[in-house]
């Protein structure tokens, strides 16, 4: 059961977000929708990176599978949302399960590179299977249910979906399962000695991460009314990993902060200058040199907790 203060803080955040559309800025609502989707994406990855200690270079694969599946079912096959979205999450989780089965046989950088290999195969399929995915022209014109066509409605839909997903992830990460993952991360060998099937745990974490990543992808594809192969490419995987690192991978909310900060930085720097890589690069450089624990480390410093080992 999370601490009282956390519950109150979360409720306040959700309430504030729910009130956002009343402020009247379309752009703010759109931006917040995007941040929420990326936050979920980053959180899903952190189940693997932060909690289990396994870095994945190919998480965008499940994001893309979720996104494409939902988009294709809605548009090409006319499925209702209530079936299309769970199907997308299920397929993403399933593929993650299959890929994860092979990947968990490796560790460390080899594990990471194998996840990359599989993810690039997913990208290759999205690229070449033009009849179904649209290939490199993308799958545009995704049909949303009429109720969600309005940006405010879609914002609330995303808010509710992401809030539920985050709550679910919280429960998972703080359950016995989650704590066991941390044990596996901290000392793989010792965890094995006390009877933990580390390989199976890592596999489960991989699948969970993939499923929630797929959910983020489904929300993403519907928001943009299109899915593109660029969102399955390794650069998308790198970006979400950067979000996790930026926020701080050893805390639950770190990835949320990282996703918000990185996405907002990218948007704002692009507004101000075509030399946004320099601005963004400098900011990231400063953050990484001053806050090697990520942005959450800054919060912890204020709280006087010091660096968690």
């Amino acid at each position, binding site marked *: 059961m999370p601490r009282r203060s956390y519950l109150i803080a979360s409720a306040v955040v959700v309430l504030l977000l729910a009130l956002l559309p009343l402020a009247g800025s379309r752009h703010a609502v759109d931006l917040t929708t995007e941040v929420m989707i990326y936050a979920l994406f980053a959180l899903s990855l952190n189940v693997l*990176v932060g909690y289990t200690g396994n*870095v994945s270079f190919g998480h965008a694969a499940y994001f893309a599978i979720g996104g494409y599946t939902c988009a294709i079912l809605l548009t090409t096959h006319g499925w209702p949302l209530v079936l299309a979205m769970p199907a997308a999450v299920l397929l993403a989780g399933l593929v993650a399960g299959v890929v994860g089965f*092979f990947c968990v*046989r*490796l*560790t*460390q*950088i*080899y594990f990471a*590179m*194998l996840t*990359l*290999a*599989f993810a*690039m*195969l997913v*990208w*290759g399929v999205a*690229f*070449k299977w033009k009849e179904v995915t649209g290939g490199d022209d993308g799958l545009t014109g995704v049909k949303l249910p009429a109720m969600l066509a309005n940006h405010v409605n879609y914002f609330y839909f995303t808010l509710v979906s992401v809030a539920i997903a985050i709550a679910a992830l919280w429960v998972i990460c703080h359950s016995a399962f989650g704590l066991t993952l941390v044990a596996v991360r901290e000392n*793989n*060998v010792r965890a094995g000695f006390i009877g933990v099937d580390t390989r199976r745990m890592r596999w489960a974490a991989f699948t969970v991460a993939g499923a929630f990543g797929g959910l983020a992808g489904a929300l993403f594809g519907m928001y943009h009314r299109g899915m593109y192969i660029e969102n399955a490419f*390794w*650069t998308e995987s*790198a970006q979400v*990993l*950067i979000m996790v*690192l*930026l926020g701080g*991978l050893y805390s639950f909310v770190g990835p949320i902060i990282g996703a918000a900060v990185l996405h907002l930085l990218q948007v704002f720097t692009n507004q101000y200058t075509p*030399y946004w*890589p*320099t601005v*963004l*690069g*400098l900011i*990231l*450089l400063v953050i*990484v*040199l001053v806050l*090697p*624990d*990520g942005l959450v480390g800054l919060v912890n410093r204020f709280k006087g907790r010091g660096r968690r080992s």
Partner: protein
Amino acid sequence: MTTTMFTLNAFYGLALAMNMFIIASGLNLIFGVLRVINFAHGMFYMFGAYIIFTVTKSWGAPFFVGVLASAAGLAVIALVIERLLLRHLYGKEHLMQLLFTFAVVLLMSDAAKMIWGTDQYSVGYPAGLGGAVNLGFVVLPQYQLFLCVVGPLIAIAMWLLVDKTRAGRIVRAATQDREMLAALGVNVPMVYAAVFTIGSALAGVGGALAAPRVALVPGMDATIINECFIIVIIGGLGHMWGSFVGALAFGFVVQFGTVWAPNWQDVLPYLLMLAVLIVRPWGLFGQPESGR
């Protein structure tokens, strides 16, 4: 496939492998010793190509002076990055070094844009290597022959350096146990700086040597970094001859694969890596690591 075609493709595969080996060996060195995932390695390659362009085209220097200039230029850039910034991150969470190199990529990409603009450039072949050699049943481009000689030379030079010299022993020791090495009185920070510098200089040389055969455009760093990582991983992390063999596998698979299965071009390197890692989870020559 005729004998001529087969020989030609095998030769091209070899030349590609040698070019890739030169770049990847630098990454392997850095990764093997420093355990740093240097995302910026591809950008170093790109700078190597742009530097030789400036030196040969704008300043009119001969090609090989250009190669040296690329090596020197990247050595300086790498040394500055390492001494000024990277070394603060050694003791920290490993993954933050990844974030750091990502920031370096952003900064260097804009620096390249500011220095060289966004046009595409072309570097000519060095004098005497722009033609082809006719062996009767097959005609081979001279420049690729040159790469097939340079690649193994660099491999042998690195092997001698790492295996036969005291400096090399120190570098190997740094891979195993940094603390013990420091306790024995070795200036470990200097070793790290040297390794990062030499590895990055190799990327610069690789870029310079690749320049006559490709168009120089912004964005040329992106595919190279992935391909280098694949080669290093296939070979086995930290293992130099592993990278050499990995590069050979890469070269042949990509060359023949593109001819025989062009639909799979985009994913051939990844399929290769998949196949190797499933059979040998630590790469062809890699060793499982003790502890974490």
